[in-house]
C-alpha cells in the first residue's frame, strides 16, 4: 500500500510493522512526530506496544534497556541533544548486547541552538557499539527500521537509523507500506537466548575484571564484523521479499569513474542529480553512498573506490581538530591497500545549511582541478 508519508511517520510505520513491544521515548524537535505517531497508533490499538513516556532521553534508553533485557522488541527515537544525553546508556545497551533499534533524526548540536540537520549528534556516538544506518529516503527509512531489527537480533547489537532532520523527517514522499503478513514472515518474533526470566534466573553485567573484559570486547567487535555480511544478507532477503534493496553501500554510476564522490543521507539524492547531469556531459564521475557507517564496510568501500583516480568525501559533520568523519573513515579504509588515491575532504551543510546541486558541482569542480587535496579539509561556501 502506497502512502504519502513524512520521514518521521515512515519510522513509525516501520515500528508498527515490526510489532515492537515496548517503546520508551522522550520528545525533541525534529523527532517529535515519531513519538506522536506511535502514541496515536498505540492509542488507536493498531500497535499493541507498551509506551513509556519518560522524563528524559536518558530514561528513554534506560526503559528500552530494561524492556529489551526482559526479552521484548524495543524501540526509541531521539535527536541531537537527546542522543547525547543517552550516550552513557548507548554503551550500556551495546555492552549488554541488546538488539534495541532507535531512530535518530540528525540534528546539529548546540550551542548555539540549532534544530536543523547535521550528523555530529550520531557520529559522536560512533564508538558506543551501535550499528548506524544513514538513510536517503522515507522509503529507505521505513524499510531500514524493519531490516535493522532483523540485523540487530541476529548479531545482538543495537541499531541506530539516521534520517536528516526536516529534509527527511518532515518531508513527505510516497512510501510503499509492506503487508504485515509479509513483514511477519520476514521478521519473526524476537526470541532471545538470554533474558530476565524468573524460571531461569541469570545475572547480567556483573563486575568483570581484565581476565574476561578484553574477550567480551573482542566478541563485540566480532559481532560488528559479522554484521556486515548479515546486513547484506538481510538486505538481499528484503529484496526477494519486498522487491527493494539498498546495500550497505551503494555505488552509483561508478563505472570507469575518475572521480567518485562519497556521500551519506539526503546529500546522496542531490549528488545523484549532479552525477546524472555531469555524466550526460561525458564526465566520468560516480558516487558512493555509504549507508552503513558502523560497522564501517571497509571491504565494500575499498572495492568501490579501487579504480577511482580521485575521491571526494562530503561530510555533513566535523570532528573538530581533524575533519570530516566519513572522510577519515574512507582514508583509513584505503590506507592499508597501498592504493593511495587522493582523498579530498569537504565539510558541507552543517546546521542544516542547504547542500544544493551547485555546492556539489563546486566540490566536483574543485576536485577535478586539483591533483592533490592540499588542505585536509575544505570548507564549502564559507562566508568569512
Amino acid at each position, binding site marked *: 500500500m502506497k502512502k504519502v508519508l513524512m520521514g518521521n511517520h515512515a519510522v513509525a510505520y516501520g515500528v508498527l510493522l515490526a510489532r515492537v513491544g515496548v517503546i520508551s521515548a522522550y520528545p525533541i524537535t525534529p523527532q517529535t512526530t515519531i513519538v506522536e505517531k506511535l502514541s496515536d497508533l498505540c492509542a488507536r490499538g493498531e500497535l499493541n506496544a507498551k509506551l513509556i513516556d519518560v522524563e528524559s532521553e536518558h530514561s528513554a534508553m534506560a526503559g528500552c534497556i530494561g524492556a529489551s533485557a526482559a526479552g521484548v522488541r524495543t524501540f526509541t527515537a531521539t535527536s541531537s541533544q537527546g542522543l547525547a544525553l543517552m550516550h552513557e546508556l548507548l554503551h550500556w545497551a551495546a555492552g549488554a*548486547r541488546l538488539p534495541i533499534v532507535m531512530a535518530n533524526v540528525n540534528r546539529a548540536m548546540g550551542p548555539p541552538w540549532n534544530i536543523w540537520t547535521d550528523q555530529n549528534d550520531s557520529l559522536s556516538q560512533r564508538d558506543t557499539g551501535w550499528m548506524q544506518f544513514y538513510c536517503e529516503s522515507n522509503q529507505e527509512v521505513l524499510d531500514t527500521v524493519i531490516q535493522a531489527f532483523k540485523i540487530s537480533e541476529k548479531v545482538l547489537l543495537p541499531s541506530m537509523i539516521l534520517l536528516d532532520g526536516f529534509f527527511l523527517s518532515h518531508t513527505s514522499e510516497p512510501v510503499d507500506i509492506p503487508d504485515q503478513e509479509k513483514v511477519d514472515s520476514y521478521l519473526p518474533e524476537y526470541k532471545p537466548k538470554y533474558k530476565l526470566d524468573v524460571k531461569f534466573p541469570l545475572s547480567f553485567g556483573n563486575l568483570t575484571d581484565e581476565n574476561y573484559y578484553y574477550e567480551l570486547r573482542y566478541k563485540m567487535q566480532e559481532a560488528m564484523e559479522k554484521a556486515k555480511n548479515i546486513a547484506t544478507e538481510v538486505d538481499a532477503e528484503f529484496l526477494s521479499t519486498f522487491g527493494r534493496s539498498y546495500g550497505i553501500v551503494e555505488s552509483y554510476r561508478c563505472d570507469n569513474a575518475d572521480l567518485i564522490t562519497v556521500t551519506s543521507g539526503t546529500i546522496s539524492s542531490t549528488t545523484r542529480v549532479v552525477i546524472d547531469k555531469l555524466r550526460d556531459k561525458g564526465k566520468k564521475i560516480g558516487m558512493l553512498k555509504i549507508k552503513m557507517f558502523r560497522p564501517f564496510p571497509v571491504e565494500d568501500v575499498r572495492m568501490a573506490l579501487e579504480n577511482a583516480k580521485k575521491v571526494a568525501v562530503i561530510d555533513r559533520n566535523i570532528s573538530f581538530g581533524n575533519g570530516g568523519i566519513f572522510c577519515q573513515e574512507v582514508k583509513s579504509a584505503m590506507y592499508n591497500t597501498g592504493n593511495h588515491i587522493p582523498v579530498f575532504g569537504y565539510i558541507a551543510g552543517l546546521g542544516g545549511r542547504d547542500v544544493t546541486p551547485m555546492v556539489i558541482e563546486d566540490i566536483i569542480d574543485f576536485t577535478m582541478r586539483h591533483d592533490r587535496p592540499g588542505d585536509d579539509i575544505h570548507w564549502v561556501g564559507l562566508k568569512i
Partner: protein
Amino acid sequence: MPYLAVSLANTEANLTGNWRSVRPVYKNKVPPCKNACPAGEDIPLYLALISKKRFKEAWKRIIESNPFPGVCGRVCYHPCERECLRGKFDKEISIHSIERLAADYAHSHSRKDNKKRQRKGQGKKGKKVAIIGAGPAGLTCAYFLSKMGYRVIIFEASSATGGMLRQGIPEYRLPKKILDKEIEYILDLGIKVKNNTRIGTDIDIEDIRRNYNAIFIATGAHKNRKLLIPGEDNSHRIIPGLDFLKGQNSGHNKETGERVAIIGGGNTAIDIARSVLRQGTKPMLIYRRSREEMPAIEEEIHQAENEGIIFHYLTSPTDIIMDEEGKKINLGCIRMKQGEPDKTGRRAPAAIKGSNFIIEADSMISAIGEDPDLSFLPADIKTNKMGILIDANNATTLEGVFAGGDAAGEPRSVISAIGSGKRGAYSIDRYLKGVKSEEISKPSIVQYEDLNLDYFEKGKWNEPLKLSVEDRINDYKEVNKGFSAEMGITEASRCFSCGICNMCDNCLIFCPDITVVRKKKGYEINYDYCKGCLICVEECPRSAMTSIEEIK
C-alpha cells in the same frame, strides 16, 4: 565463554571466611545466679520452662541439681537473687518464688508410679555408702548417690528425718508437709534410714567403715553457743535457742511467760522471736550490731518488724539476775557503738562505757549460734574450729570418709548444706570409681556489660503473696504464699537468661552473611563464609556468643 557478561554459577566458591581475623563462638556461659547457687541450679533453664507454663518439666530440671526445691523456695536466703543481673536493670527476679511454685505444682500433681521406677535402679553399682545424719546435706548426698546407683543407708540420731529443716525452722516458714514430701521423694529412691541411731553411742564408726565402701558425715551443728555472761545457767527461764525451736517443732512448747528477750541477729533469733510472738507473748530481740549487719534474711527481719517485735540494736547483754521467785529476769545490757572495721571489713561493736541498763523479761532465749558436736569422731578424722576438716572434695583426713554441711564448717545455710551434700556425692562417686577429681576451669560468668539490654524493656514485677500481719500472728500458718501460676509465668518471663541461649534467633536474623544456622538445639556457624563481623556476638541479648581471635 558467553558473548556477554551473564552469570554461569553462584558465588559459593568464594569462601569469605578467609577474611576473618576474629570468630564468633556459640557457647553458653554461666549465669551469675547459677554461679551464686551452692547447688548450681540451672535457674534460667527452669525459668524459661515456667514462662512456657511447663511447670513439671521445670521441677524436673531443678531436682537434677537440688532435691529440695519446695524447701529452698521457702527458706533459702537465695544468693542467686542478689546476683541476678536484672537487679541492676530494674528489679531482680524472685527466683525463689518461682522455684517454690514449680515444686508445689509438682508435688500436687505427682504420680505414685514414680516410686517403682525409681527403686529399680537402686544398688546397681553394688557399692554401699553410709551417710551419717539425715539433714539437708546428708539427704542430698544420699539422693545423688542413690541416683548414681549406689546403695545408700542413712544413720540418724533422732527419730525423724530432715535435721535442722525439721527441728530448727518454724512451721509458718516451712510447713512440715512440704518437707515430708521432698524427703519422701528422696527416700523413694530406695534409701534406707536408721533412726535413733547415734554414732559412737548406738553404732561404732569403725563398724560402718568396715561394712561400707564410703562414709559421708553430715551431723550438723546442734550445740548451742553460750553467751558466756554471769547468771546464764541459773534458770529454766533461760532457754538455749535451738532447744526452744526443737521443742516447738516437736509440739512441746516451752513456757516463756509474756516478755521474752531473744539474743542474736541470725535467722534462728528471728524464727524464735516470731514463734514466741505466735504463742501470744511480747518478744524483744537484742542484737549487738546494727540492723544493716543482721545476718538474718532481710525479708524475715522486715516481716518480724511488721509483726510488732521490738528490736534493741547495738545492745549487748552483760549479766543476768533472776528475781527472788526465779520468774523474772533482769537482763543487764550495755549500749554498743560501731567500732573500726576488722579484717573481714565488718565493724566490731564496742561497748559504750557507763551506758548500762536493764531489760526486764520473763524469759530469755539465746540464739547466737550453734557449733557441731564432734565428740564421736575418731582421732584420725581431724577437726578445726569450724568443724570437720575437709578438702575441696569434701574428703576428711581419713580414707573413705567424707563430710559436709554444718558439721564440716560449711556456711550455715540450707542451700550450702545441699550444695555440700551434692559435692560430697560426686566426690564419693569419683572415689569409688578410682577417678581423680577434674581440674575445673574457671567458669566464664556473664557480666552486666555483656548483655545487650536493648532487647529488654524495663517493666513491672510481681511481689510474692503473703498473709497480712493480722492473719498470721495468731497461729503457725505459712506466712509467705509465693506466686500464683500466672504471676510465676510473668515473673519467669522477665529472666534475661544470662549466658544461656534461648533460641531467640537474633544471631541468625542479624547475620549479614547468612552463616548462622538454627539446629534442633542451638546454632551452628558456617565458618566457610562467616566474615567475623561479630554482629551475632553483639546482638545476642544474653551473651551466649563469644568472640575469639582467629588462629592464623
